[in-house]
């Protein structure tokens, strides 16, 4: 950790005691050149610097996949878990240590395929986790297999003549779960929006689900090219309580007022495929947060023994 080096680019920090974005870097990211995971990593580091989070008070939990290498590259506690199971681990950690900031990073296969059951239920538990789905529409690490989010017709090693199913929409699926409290979409190629979305997710108390459209130049170089090239294919969802990043109105012509408390509209918008929509689809801060409602006061060892004695009286012969 080189806490003395303050990046000039990092506008939030002009106090030498502060940690700069670079201070949150651990190992160097080992993704392919141009991989969208770098963008996510950068946005996260900026967020950590902005919030001045203590490295030892955070944990990044992931599954297995290119994207799940993420924890190795952040100066924080990390848990590079097993494929599809980041959410149970993160939930357990948060239950045990509610004071830690816990981030979860998953790939599309990780979260929506093998991890689908945990995803549904973690959404429902609504533990206070910041959840990043890095969705490159493909299995990257295992080298090019179709994922649930792959567009229909994707040619991959497991669908050599084109995949046969329409893609699963992670937003719509999350919105289908009762208790879903924060659902947003952003893209690695719009850093300001990405950053603002992560900021909002971090601030939300509850399970903040952020789908990040992530470019994989290696295996899905084409899936987002249209949208990257032509900003007119994107519509921003804006609202005073939504994701608000300065300057984006210049970049994107289309924008739409959407009240993130309107669940029906959120679903209807997620359903439409005319444009790519970035922004906050839904947020409700009123849902119970699992780690809050399951927190019980600690009890001293002595006190426990006293209570155990009473418990045993019930069983006494």
């Amino acid at each position, binding site marked *: 950790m080189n806490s003395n080096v303050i990046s000039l680019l990092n506008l939030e920090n002009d106090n030498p005691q502060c940690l700069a974005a670079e201070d949150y870097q*651990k*190992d160097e990211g080992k993704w392919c050149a141009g991989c969208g995971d770098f963008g996510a990593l950068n946005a996260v580091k900026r967020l950590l610097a902005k919030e001045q989070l*203590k*490295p*030892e*008070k955070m*944990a*990044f*939990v992931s599954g297995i996949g290119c994207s799940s290498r993420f*924890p*190795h590259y952040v*100066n*924080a*506690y*990390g*848990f*590079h*878990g*097993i494929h599809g*199971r980041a*959410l*149970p*681990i*993160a*939930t*357990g*950690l*948060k*239950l*045990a*240590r509610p*004071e*830690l900031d816990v981030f979860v990073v998953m790939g599309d296969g990780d979260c929506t395929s093998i991890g689908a*059951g*945990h995803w*549904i*239920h973690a959404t429902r538990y609504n533990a206070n986790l910041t959840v990043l789905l890095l969705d490159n529409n493909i299995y990257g690490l295992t080298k090019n297999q179709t994922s649930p989010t792959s567009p229909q017709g994707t040619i991959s090693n497991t669908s050599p003549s084109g995949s046969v199913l329409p893609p699963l929409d992670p937003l719509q699926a999350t919105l289908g779960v009762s208790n879903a409290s924060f659902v947003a979409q952003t893209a690695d190629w719009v850093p300001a929006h990405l950053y603002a979305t992560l900021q909002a997710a971090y601030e939300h108390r509850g399970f903040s689900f952020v789908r990040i459209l992530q470019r994989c130049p290696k295996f899905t170089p084409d899936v987002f090219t249209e949208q990257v090239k032509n900003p007119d294919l994107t519509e921003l969802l804006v609202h005073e309580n939504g994701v608000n990043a300065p300057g984006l109105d210049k970049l994107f012509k289309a924008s739409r007022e959407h009240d993130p408390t309107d669940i029906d509209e959120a679903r209807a918008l997620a359903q439409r495929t005319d444009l790519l929509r970035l922004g906050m689809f839904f947020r409700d801060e009123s849902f119970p947060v699992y780690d809050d409602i*399951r927190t*019980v*006061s*600690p*009890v001293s*060892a*002595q006190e*426990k*023994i006293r*209570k*155990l*004695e009473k*418990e*045993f009286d019930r*069983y*006494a*012969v």
Partner: protein
Amino acid sequence: MNSIANSKTSISTVSEHTVEIITDSGEGAQKCAHVFGQTCAKMGNGVWTVEIIPAEIEPPAHTTTSTSGNIVRFGTEKITNWGDQSKLAVAFNDQVCLSRHRLDSFDDNCIILHECSWETHEDENVREQYAKAMEEMSSKNYRLIKVPIEEETLKVVDNAQHGKNMFALGLLAEIYQRDLSIIEKQIAHIFRHKPAKITEINVELVKRGMAWARDNLKFQYIIESKPVVENRVVMTGNQAAALGAVAAGMELCAMYPITPATSVSHELAAIIENYGGIVHQAEDEIAAAGVALGASYGGKVALTVTSGPGMALKTEFLALAIMSEIPLVVLDVQRGGPSTGLPTKVEQSDLLSSLYGQPGDAPRIVIAPRSIEECFHSMITARRIAETFRCVVIVLTDANLASGVQQFTRPEFDSRWQQDPVDFSALPEGLRPYDWDPETGLSRRIVPGTPGGQHTVTGLAHDESSKVSYDPESNERGCRMRSRKLAVLQSTLLPPPIYGEEKGDLLVVGWGSTQGAIEEAVDRAHDAGLSVSSCQLTFLSPLEPGLKEIFSRYRKVMTVEINYSDTIGDPYITEETRRYGQLAWILRAQTLVDIDCWTSCPGQPLRPNDIYNSILEKIK
């Protein structure tokens, strides 16, 4: 003991008896047996209670599949198992009685008090069924005594369904001269949340049962009790395990319901929040393991509780725990397998999968409590070992311990049983997350929150800094260090105690819940002049030391286990093709001694007498 038997009654003094209360599902046999067992225990008898559970939630009444009930074995001395056949039974109908008969559950001279109204029931089919059942049972010398249970019960309540059980309790109370004041207290306790009237009615029913027995039965049994010198408690193995988890300071139990393990979490759910802990019901067993692991990673040694099919699902996560050296305690309450198998019934066949279930080399600790008392203490041991060795500890109990009820010495709590608070003090300069002591493989666990300790744990091969590394040296070092911990733990263990002579003709080796039955069989063999000893293992991985030397002192060694093994002499089964009992197999590999086995998987605990017979056979 105050005998109130009238003069014409024959009174026999016996050292123990086994009693069955068998009814249709939902007729309250459990309550009757519970009060009876508790009363016996409070009067100073040794007691062991076993449930008889039907396969269906609500099977059709008055059939051989509807049998629900309890077996209570009690005696002057400590009782360690369910024993052999029952000496006395109270049956609410002929069909449940018949089902037990077919299972060979009754002693040849069993006294069977049974409801008489079926004989004269208005429905001809019922009468015929009754007659057939009686005929089938006439092959034995049972003493069948008709009792107007329903008729008598209806004198007190309107719905016999909710009363017959207390009348039956009265019958037993009279026959075994149980202390009515204790019974009254027990009943009052059970219905403490109900209006006082309910207690009164139930006590009234007990008294009526006693009166009927006094007037109509011409026998009583005296089972003396010894003065109780120590504080004792009585509970099931699952209750003991739940309390053990609390006593061990476990503050998170993540589970998914599965018989026969679920009741551990029911017990915990009811109390753990008072101890600063929670039960998390996960979406499945995989997630339960993951949540427990996440919590353990966070510094709390967590527990996950399950049974066979759930263990299967946890396979992958256990490997991650082992690889990342995050402590984790897994309680597997074994049931009959494979697959869904016999969900409510006992078996000891998860041993091999507990030891070898994970792909890759994944050393873990496996222990098996031998009694209900040990179900309590093993949770404390397990937590401590898991933490000290940064490893997975699997505790194997089974359906027999889970629902069996027995007294044991009330534990004296020790605050050192509790988990030490996590040490968040700054780390010694340069300490790495896997700074294995090259001798012992042990290393200090660094918990999130510790300043300067940031690192990323991974299930990939890694070096001391927890960095992914695929080089041969790192991989081999990791394997070596994880394996070494087992040898180190083994070096702290003592050879298992021998029950009986230190050498002889035959050594019976068992593990876990069969201790009581095996030792009773060994006693019987000893009384018959045979040179037989036994030895009950608790540590299955690593095995306790000295086994080979112990085995060498006996002419023959055999395991007794509740699992499957082939029988030599069956078609195609030779010395070479035989599949052995699971412990026998491990011990053969470990000691190279030609260990034989007698195993059986009837979905019931083993009976001392069957073990005794197997001893007679093998010692030849």
